[in-house]
């Protein structure tokens, strides 16, 4: 007879289905992303997924770990999605390859695989790319509505794998700096937020043009994950709260030099970061109070890097920096055990 140890009842969905639901939650945002920046986004996601699974399988085999349960736990797919969604839509294929392989092989598997990586693998891969290939990594596309050119899936794939644009199209015609980047450059040149936003076509009414939709739908997917208890509210709320409060304070201090909070919340990787990246359980804080500090830290650092730093978006660096603080925060935020005095 079976005599397994109690409890004999398991209500929990397995890791693989948790990860799968994270992917589901990403889908609306991904569709918006494709709608705004074209099929390049989809090509990146598919390619990154293939690279991630292949690197995972190879490293598991080399490490002598069982391949099947870990390959299909879904975590590599989530990493691939998050990294691909952070890349410029026409990033050459080798960028995706290097970033994804680094994320899986170095940032995840070399640290011991699922559950043991202190850093968020996708963000580690992203930062390595950003530092090594700054030109490729900051060459962003203009929304298709701005450039007026919509490429088919095959054309997009050709750009990514061959570097060949369809005849009659130049890179200059389709590319543009991101809204966050544009704003920073123009403020540096002495313009005010107002004039900058009026002068460039990449801005929308809330944040970056098109980015509002992307962020809005990632927000929706994130709320669904909270509703489904895949993540808790702590990190997203604290992160967005930190970003909001910082931008509000500076905006109130000088609205000409510091853009309004909504802009920050609806530009760049704000929502993706708050709900999908910073909430990666393995590399984030696990105590409820710790999650609040962790999230707020990411939000505040993101604002600082966006506003005064040398890089266009700050989510990746902020997440990695806060990853380092996790053991410390977790240690000092243990909940009061039942029956213990404070």
């Amino acid at each position, binding site marked *: *007879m*079976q*005599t*397994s*140890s*109690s*409890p*004999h*009842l*398991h*209500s*929990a*969905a*397995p*890791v693989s*289905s*948790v990860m799968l639901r994270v992917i589901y939650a990403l889908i609306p945002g991904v569709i918006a992303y494709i709608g705004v920046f074209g099929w390049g986004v989809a090509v990146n996601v598919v390619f990154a997924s293939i690279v991630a699974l292949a690197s995972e399988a190879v490293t598991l085999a080399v490490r002598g770990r069982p391949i099947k*349960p*870990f390959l299909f*736990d879904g*975590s590599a797919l989530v990493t691939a999605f998050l990294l691909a969604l952070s890349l410029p839509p026409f990033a050459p294929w080798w960028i995706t390859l290097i970033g994804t392989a680094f994320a899986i092989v170095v940032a995840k598997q070399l640290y011991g*695989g*699922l*559950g*043991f990586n202190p850093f968020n693998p996708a963000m580690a891969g992203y930062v390595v790319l950003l530092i090594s290939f700054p030109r490729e990594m900051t060459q962003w596309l203009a929304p298709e509505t701005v450039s007026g050119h919509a490429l088919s899936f095959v054309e997009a794939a050709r750009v990514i794998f061959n570097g060949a644009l369809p005849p009659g199209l130049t890179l200059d015609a389709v590319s543009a700096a991101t809204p966050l980047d544009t704003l920073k450059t123009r403020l540096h040149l002495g313009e005010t937020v107002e004039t900058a936003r009026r002068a460039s076509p990449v801005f929308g009414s809330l944040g970056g043009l098109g980015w509002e939709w992307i962020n809005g739908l990632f927000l929706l997917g994130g709320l669904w994950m909270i509703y489904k208890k895949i993540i*808790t509210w702590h990190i997203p709320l604290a992160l967005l709260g930190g970003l909001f409060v910082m931008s509000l304070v500076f905006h109130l201090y000088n609205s000409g030099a510091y853009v309004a909070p909504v802009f920050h919340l609806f530009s760049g990787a704000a929502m993706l970061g708050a709900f999908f990246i910073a909430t990666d*359980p*393995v590399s*984030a804080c*696990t*105590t*409820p109070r710790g*999650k609040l500090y962790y999230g707020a830290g990411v939000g505040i650092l993101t604002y600082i890097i966006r506003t005064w730093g040398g890089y266009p978006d700050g989510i990746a660096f902020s997440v990695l920096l806060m990853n380092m603080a996790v053991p410390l925060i977790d240690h000092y935020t*243990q*909940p*009061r*055990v*039942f*029956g*213990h*005095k404070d």
Partner: protein
Amino acid sequence: MSGKLRRFPGGLHLDGHKTESTQCAVQRARLPRRLILPLHQHIGAEAKSVVMAGERVLKGQMIARAEGYVSAPVHAPSSGTVVEIGDRPVPHPSGLSAPCIVIETDGTEQWCERHPVQDYITQDPSHLRNLIREAGIVGLGGAGFPSFIKLNPLGKTVDTLILNAAECEPYITCDDMLMRERAAEIIHGIQIMRHALHAAHCIIGIEDNKPEARAALVRALQELHIDGIQVTQVPTRYPAGGEKQLIHVLTGKEVPSNGLPVHIGIVCHNVATAAAIYRAVQHGEPLISRYVTVTGSGVPEPRNLEVLFGTPMAELLEQCGADPASVERLVMGGPMMGFGVHMPGVPVVKTTNCLLADRHLPAAPAAMPCIRCGACAEACPANLLPQQLYWHAHAGEFDKAQNYNLFDCIECGCCAAVCPSHIPLVQYYRYAKGEIWTREREKQKADVARERHEFRLARLAQDKAEREARHAQKKAELAGKTAPHETTSH
């Protein structure tokens, strides 16, 4: 008493699966040919047999006496002949055998002489406690701690007596059925407890998924014209029936870590224990039977049975239409805290509240690494960080696990039930606790050995000193003889 209920941290909403076994009235289990009575059915020292093989015993006769203070006697559940005293498989997670008295029943159910106490109010509480001790009554909620000890306030004022009727684990319904069918006995038993404890208040805490049982209690209180006992429904959420959790929900007080409820003026007993106390005091019947829920996917006719202790579990399964050979897993207790028994032939004991028999079990999911999702911490009613406990227990860093308050873990299983990596967390905690206890015992042994060693060294040193002193004396005496002018008084 304020009527405001508190909320304990964590906890889970689980599928109750209770209606399956509450469809029909409780029946008596068939009298088995042989009753197997382990001498150790409670917390504390093993009872000591007072009968011999071949001896005829009567129903209710004491066959093993309590050994020491924390212990409980065992009585013959039916009349018959003692055929064997020796090691038999018993229901225990280890699957090991333990000393048992085996009685071959004669079917006459002939009682021994009973000494009912009609008017308990005139009795001295210490006398009542003695009766309860002699009746072998232990906590019937599952723990099996000798009840008379918890009826001794030890000079502390007991503000509130709490009756645990929560029965929060899925599948188990024996207390539910007992309340429906024997509410008056429970109430009488509670009155005896109140008298023994001089408790100012009394609350029966019952989960709100048992409206029939609650109604039966309220009706019994009205019919018996008894005041001062309050029946309070608590929200159904596992583990609301954990002693510390129930106390917190009902009174807002937290039992201090390392402390007992009585330290905050509270004593908590199970309702079935109350009924047993009533039978012991007012009918002179020792504890020889109990209600047992027989349920699970392997049981075609799930129900509650009134079972004599010592009845092999297999016979109960058969009586409920199950084929013991086809049962893949037999759990004693509930799905959250019960343990798997190794064979269906082991007997029902005082702490057997439920038999959960399953067949066609899905393969247990393989454990994955901890992904630090924190679901376990959210579910933990003790507010622990189960993932940290696991991490340190897994790494063998038991002192660190202890720093994370390992010993506040009540082994409720909430953490493991919600873990997406399907890590058998509680197993690690039990292992770590066991290791720590073993080490402490060894350290104590080592301390004793060291003391002995030091004592021996001291004695040797003393011997030597004495020898030297004698030697010196002799020398001096000799010297005295050669030099008689010197005094020898030294």
